[in-house]
């Protein structure tokens, strides 16, 4: 994932050490690792388990329970489309179909050029200006298929400029 550092055991350990003293530290640690490296590498699981005196199974169980955490590198950008009711009432089903067809991926898939990972999300709190999508930390409202295409092309041109 461009812009993000490659993980190493030492870098992972630094994230763990910064947070392990907190009560209920596991979620904050997983967030910190994913924010930093884009995902939680499976190799980090025993390291986290050791620090928190938990088994690998326990740590893995937590990672897999939550939709937010992923264990493989995503594309450069993550595009989330809201699938919840308010967005449905404003045409999000057509928007989802359009996104899948135009990107050529299903949910949780990454485009062949590794630019965009498509994910479902259930409500972004922008329900009065539905349908909504999220790209990184930016939320967009009243998204039509045409507007989605514009957002996608902006993402990919920006990525090209970086190279």
């Amino acid at each position: 994932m461009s812009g993000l550092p490659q993980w190493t055991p030492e870098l992972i350990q630094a994230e763990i050490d910064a947070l392990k003293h907190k009560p209920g530290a596991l979620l904050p640690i997983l967030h910190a690792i994913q924010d930093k490296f884009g995902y939680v590498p499976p190799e980090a699981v025993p390291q986290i388990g050791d620090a928190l005196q938990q088994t690998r199974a326990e740590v893995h169980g937590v990672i897999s329970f939550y939709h937010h955490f992923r264990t493989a590198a995503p594309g450069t950008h993550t595009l989330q489309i809201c699938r919840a009711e308010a967005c449905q009432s404003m045409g999000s089903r057509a928007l989802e179909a359009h996104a899948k067809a135009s990107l050529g991926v299903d949910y949780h898939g990454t485009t062949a050029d590794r630019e965009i990972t498509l994910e479902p999300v259930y409500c972004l709190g922008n329900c009065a200006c539905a349908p909504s999508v999220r790209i990184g930390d930016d939320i967009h409202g009243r998204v039509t298929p045409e507007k989605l295409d514009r957002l996608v092309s902006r993402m990919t041109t920006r990525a090209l400029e970086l190279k």
Partner: protein
Amino acid sequence: MTTRIFVPCDTTALAMGADTVAAELAQQARSRGAQVEIIRNGSRGLFWLEPLVEVETPDGRIGFGPVEADDVAALVDAGLFEGNAQHPLALGLVEEIPFLKNQQRLTFARAGITDPVSIEDYRALDGFSGLEKALQLDGQQIVDEIKASGLRGRGGAAFPTGIKWQTVLNAPAEQKYIVCNADEGDSGTFADRMVMECDPYMLIEGMAIAGLAVDATQGYIYLRSEYPVAHRLMNQAIERAYAAGYLGDNLMGSGKRFDLEVRLGAGAYICGEETSLLESLEGKRGLVRAKPPLPAIVGLFGKPTVVNNVLSLAAVPFIMDKGGETYASYGMGRSLGTLPMQLAGNVKRGGLIELAFGATLRQLMEDFGGGTFSGRALRAVQVGGPLGAYLPESQWDTPLDYESFAAVGAVLGHGGVVMFDDTVDMGEQARFSMEFCVVESCGKCTPCRIGSTRGVEVIDRIRANDNRDANLELLADLCDTMVDGSLCAMGGMTPFPVQSVMKHFPEDLQR
């Protein structure tokens, strides 16, 4: 003289382009040498007008909206910097817009007026006077004030807040916790988000008061990861509140202590359920705990814990400042005070509407909402989030209070109203309810975990006209099993929207 111009910074305003509008306004001011200060306020919740640009004038704040970056130059030409109203986007005095003027804003009184992270702005509008009062009282007196207000939890179950606090106050322990449920997973709801993005100190103040009331020194806000803007603003506000002595070990110089931290969820709807939320805060999978014991007695890390919704805690500063009786003078029956309703989906004028309990759903959708966005006929309304029933037209005159909704087999929940026009396929909506439960079930009990998967399959067969009558019977039976056999309301209420479709929109299961 410098003109003050307001451009909101909440999620919806940003989603509609507020940042580019603010940048364009600044650019125009620079190039014209105009003396302008741009303030990023919270949103008033008039979301169909976002970005709503306001210009301060001697007569009050004049609004323009919805403004796109491309409109800015023409607006400035027409005299926006002077508060001139001659433009198609001009709205006149913002406070006079009927949608806003006709509300009864107690909790959202400050939303959109102030810069959300400015402590000075907050203090200028009664901020922290509830905390100041609470610091003069003992825990029991604070709890009594909350009881007098009649406040019931706004997170869905409507349990009396004063009684919950009393239980925690009475539970002896060396450590107690205040946990704010900011998981707001329901579709069509955004009032919690607005509190955190538009008036975060109100939540901080409410939680500190709760801490004083029950003798808890540590608070956590469990915030969903889907709300990045709320996360940023809430953290900023907490940092400033610490610096100014409204959090930490010497609250307003009283020697009393309250610490507060935001914890992020990770995309699990069930973590809005209070026991699952506590498991998640403890660093575990969000599996629902059987009750009893209540979290008020054995809660976070096994200690007595108040778990309250954002809106419940946000109502507290007003109650402490103006008195429980004042709050209780609003509302009807056993539903006292105000309910922030959230109007969303296919609606012309969507947004936040805080009203005393008792207005009807139709008033909300017509008088405030102005009908559908598409201009087509309204067909169904889902109230109370994904576990709430779909209401047909015959039920739109139901008053918005907990008991009236229960009487028609519906729920008010967290106050979300999602409108659908006549293009909706209610069979598809019923199927989605089951599908959502498949995705979001915590997996602890069979009726919910397996039943929802079977529910999707049965609805698919019904929609394919495969043995329709027998499958409709099977679906009814499955719904009953889920209602009766589930440990929590996820499995227990997923059938509500499905049953409402079977009852009120049966034709959509026939096509």
